[in-house]
């Protein structure tokens, strides 16, 4: 069986097993879920290893008729970009399962439900990155909202129901706009005699579209992705959702689901509507820069640790979007690498935040204080995660962030320069919570917090390891990304600006 399909079926098998486990056997449930996710991760790693770096076409391709009447295929395949995103997803899921070992128990429903949702979500995460059929992509894109919706609403905390609804409606709205565009594409493709959703075939469609048409269709997609990503001003669902969801869910939400937005911009907006992308680039770059600073400022102002992380992500997604639309190999590869790195640094932040919250029974930053003296390991983990979030050289996010900045600068110097102020703000939004929560005298209520236990260490260790390792040696990933990035850029008819030497002289 095709590896991608296989990795998508595995979780479903896991669910099938879970069904026969009695509610009471909680531990067994968890173990099965964990084993399943680990297996999937293994498959993912194997795919990454056996990925042919030389080949810029889609790999692990599979294509079956699904709804021939509409030319819809069950078509899978990955290029470098999709591959590392899948890798990220399958690596994060087991981490989430381990870290959230007990999250499932104080939920509205049994752990069984929780893990079934996680697993079905994993299937869809792989599918959404792997599908090379626009319709199939859309199906996953929309369908994956449902499990997340129930994960937030059923196992979250606080205003979970409201947050879940906000998240779902926001995303559905975007999704429906995208549906309109997809229908548009479909009809256009039919009109020009090629009734298909195959992305490679459709990438030629723009040649027959009127600019007006192309712009409209582009917007349909872009708004959907901008909501997912989330780009200012369509971001307001994220903080609420992130605050209410369990840390594990938040990791998947910010770490993986939101990447679908930026991934979609690359795979669909750019590939299908190159001209429209060009004409909208100034606007998008502006929005991206706004997101960077806006998100940073709100993070500085945030009182709740989970909201804070959510806002930092908004800032980071600004960087990613900027890198994508800068249309330079550096910016592009940087953005893609950024997606991967952001997945892990946010995961680290959220997981540690989760550990802190579980212990303190509060997510308000000011409730913590002086943790470094009480729970050094936890404090250190948070600190490192924070450092990676502010892109400290030597940690993974620095490489990607810097690539994005450099790449953007070569084409849009002003944007890049403004965005660079983000790194100062980043220092603030990380160091302020660090000071409040970890430094200073140990405040009442924190004296007796226990440090990370073995399970939590096991969960957080690989994440931090990856963060550090990729900071010093990102080449393996870059080797995978670069060819794909180069292809996209060249498809867009762009070439990197040559060094502007001798200007003036």
């Amino acid at each position, binding site marked *: 069986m095709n590896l991608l399909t296989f990795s998508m079926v595995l979780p479903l098998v896991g669910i099938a097993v879970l069904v026969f486990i009695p509610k009471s056997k909680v531990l067994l449930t968890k173990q099965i879920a964990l084993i399943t996710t680990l297996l999937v991760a293994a498959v993912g790693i194997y795919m990454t290893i056996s990925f042919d770096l030389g080949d810029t076409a889609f790999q692990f391709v599979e294509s079956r*008729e*699904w*709804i*021939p*009447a*509409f030319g819809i295929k069950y078509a899978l395949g990955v290029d470098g970009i999709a591959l590392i995103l899948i890798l990220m997803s399958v690596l994060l899921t087991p981490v989430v399962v381990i870290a959230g070992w007990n999250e499932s128990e104080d939920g*509205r*429903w049994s752990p069984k439900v929780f893990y079934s949702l996680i697993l079905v979500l994993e299937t869809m995460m792989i599918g959404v990155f792997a599908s090379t059929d626009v319709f199939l992509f*859309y*199906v*996953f894109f*929309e*369908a994956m*909202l*449902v499990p997340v919706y*129930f994960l937030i*609403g*059923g196992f979250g905390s606080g205003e*979970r*129901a409201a947050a*879940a*609804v906000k998240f*779902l*409606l926001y995303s*559905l*709205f975007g999704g*429906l*706009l995208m*549906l*309109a565009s*997809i*229908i*548009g594409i*479909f*009809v256009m493709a*039919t*009109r020009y005699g090629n009734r298909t959703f195959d992305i490679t075939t459709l990438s030629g469609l723009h040649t027959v579209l009127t600019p007006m048409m192309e712009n409209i269709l582009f917007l349909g997609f872009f708004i959907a992705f901008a909501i997912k990503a989330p780009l200012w001003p369509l971001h307001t669902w994220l903080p609420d959702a992130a605050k209410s969801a369990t840390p594990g869910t938040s990791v998947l939400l910010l770490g993986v689901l939101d990447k679908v937005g930026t991934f979609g911009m690359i795979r669909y907006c750019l590939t299908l509507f190159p001209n429209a992308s060009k004409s909208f680039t100034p606007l998008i770059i502006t929005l991206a820069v706004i997101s960077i600073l806006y998100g940073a400022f709100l993070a500085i102002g945030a009182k709740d640790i989970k909201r804070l992380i959510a806002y930092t992500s908004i800032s980071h997604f600004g960087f990613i979007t900027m890198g994508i639309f800068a249309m330079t190999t550096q910016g592009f590869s940087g953005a893609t690498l950024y997606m991967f790195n952001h997945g892990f640094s946010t995961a680290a932040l959220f997981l540690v935040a989760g550990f802190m919250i579980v212990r303190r029974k509060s997510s308000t930053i000011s409730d913590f204080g002086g943790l470094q003296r009480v729970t050094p390991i936890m404090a250190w983990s948070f600190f490192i995660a924070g450092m990676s979030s502010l892109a400290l050289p030597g940690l993974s996010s620095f490489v990607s962030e810097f690539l994005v900045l450099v790449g953007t600068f070569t084409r849009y110097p002003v944007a890049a320069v403004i965005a660079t102020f983000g790194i100062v703000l980043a220092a603030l939004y990380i160091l302020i919570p660090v000071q409040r929560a970890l430094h200073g005298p140990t405040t009442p209520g924190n004296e007796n917090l226990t440090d990370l236990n073995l399970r939590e260490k096991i969960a957080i260790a690989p994440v931090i390891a990856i963060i550090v390792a990729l900071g010093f040696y990102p080449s393996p990933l870059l080797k995978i990304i670069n060819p794909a990035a180069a292809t996209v850029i060249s498809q867009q008819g762009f070439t990197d600006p040559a060094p502007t030497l001798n200007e003036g002289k």
Partner: protein
Amino acid sequence: MINFYSPTLEYSLLAPILIVLGGALIGVLIEAFAPAASRTRSQLFITLTSLVLSLAALIKVRNEGSASAAMESVTFDGAGVLLQASILVLAIISVFLLADQENFTALAAALPGSEQERDSLRQDLKVTEIYPLTLFAVAGMMLFPVATDLITLFVALEVLSLPLYILAGLSRRRRLMSQESALKYFLLGAFSSAFFLMGIAYLYGYSSSVSLSGIHAAVVGGSGNDIYLLLGIAFLSVGLLFKVGAVPFHAWTPDVYQGAPTAVTAFMAAATKVAAFGAMLRIFYVCFAEAYWQWRPALIAIALVTMAFGSLVAIAQKDVKRMLAYSSIAHAGFLLAGVISLNKSGLDATIFYLFVYGVATVGAFAIVTLVRDSAGEVTDLNRWSGLGKRSPWVATAFAGFLLAFAGIPLTSGFIGKFAIFSAAYESGSTAILITGVLASAIAAFFYIRVIVLMFFKDPIEDGTTVVIPSLFTQVAITISTVITFALGIYPTPLINFIQSTAQFIR
């Protein structure tokens, strides 16, 4: 001196309808002669068998290929048969609900709250009339979309309507409401059918023919007086739009859906829509197609208003049956999109949509019948809160149907939406596409609200319980759930079948 031909009747083709009618007549006889005790069972048996037989016969008819029968007054072409088949399937599922007598009054004639009613309940009489009535309605519905002359069309309309008027009044609980709904349905129905008839009159005046083909010929020829055509189309549309419940002819829908016994509502909402839209498709595709430039704009406008109105007002509903009613109005709007698209893909899409929507509707209402307290069904949405805790499976099924209504991928509703909107856009109507999408967004709003209510709110202890569904209801729910999701995940067989068979012959 007009010479007289003895009519020829192709019984083999008419068999499906005749079987149903026959079943109905037998039912009447049973009512008359069989002992009360044995009626229920025998009626149910007769009804199901006749429906199933008719379905079988229908398949046979289909295999003989498209043909018209009874002096061109009915035509069994692909589309017609598909519609009939859907009606039959929906009818069968609904009958399972009807079989759950809890929904129906013991003695329709007895005054609400009267001594008579009480002891009728005590001896628990059963209103077994509902079975023949249903069968008659089904027969009418089957006739409606295949009728190719205006007389048959009119008769069919009445045959399907009259039994429904009565059925609407037979609720066991809240009988005043039930009777009121019957009254409203009847008066407005009659009112609209008067328009329908007037339309027929003018069309006849325009084309001097009552057969659709004749009218089509006239339209093509353009000989007649356009005023008559105009009035004809307008009045005929009023009658049809009333049946499908499009704004502004929708007003009866919420009241009747709420007042009527839920089982009947299910049947009505699902099957009537198919029949009415079937007829509409035939009329507009077969005889008014060439005059589209006259009526299409108006119909588009109605479609837009209907989508928007249905979705918006549904948000404000507190009663689950009313909410479903308004959502059905919204869906009528979506379906109109298929009618106005006036192309093959529009036809296919509409037929597919009609079927999947009908199934989901029956399923949804079936679940409504399960949520009860001592005073019967609980339709107040607030009291549905925490249903997910009380009985997860029922809630999950209902959520599934709601998601299908909302058109979430992997449910049949999504495929339907995609098909019908793409057809509409293919025919060049961007407005429909945009409004449709926005309307769906609004609609999602209240479907999700119900899901939140069921799953994320805690139950309020007020004796609201979910009864253990009777076998029949279980079957109904199961079938509709399976169909809804199966067609969401792999709709290809049905779509291909529709695509290959669905066409109208003039």
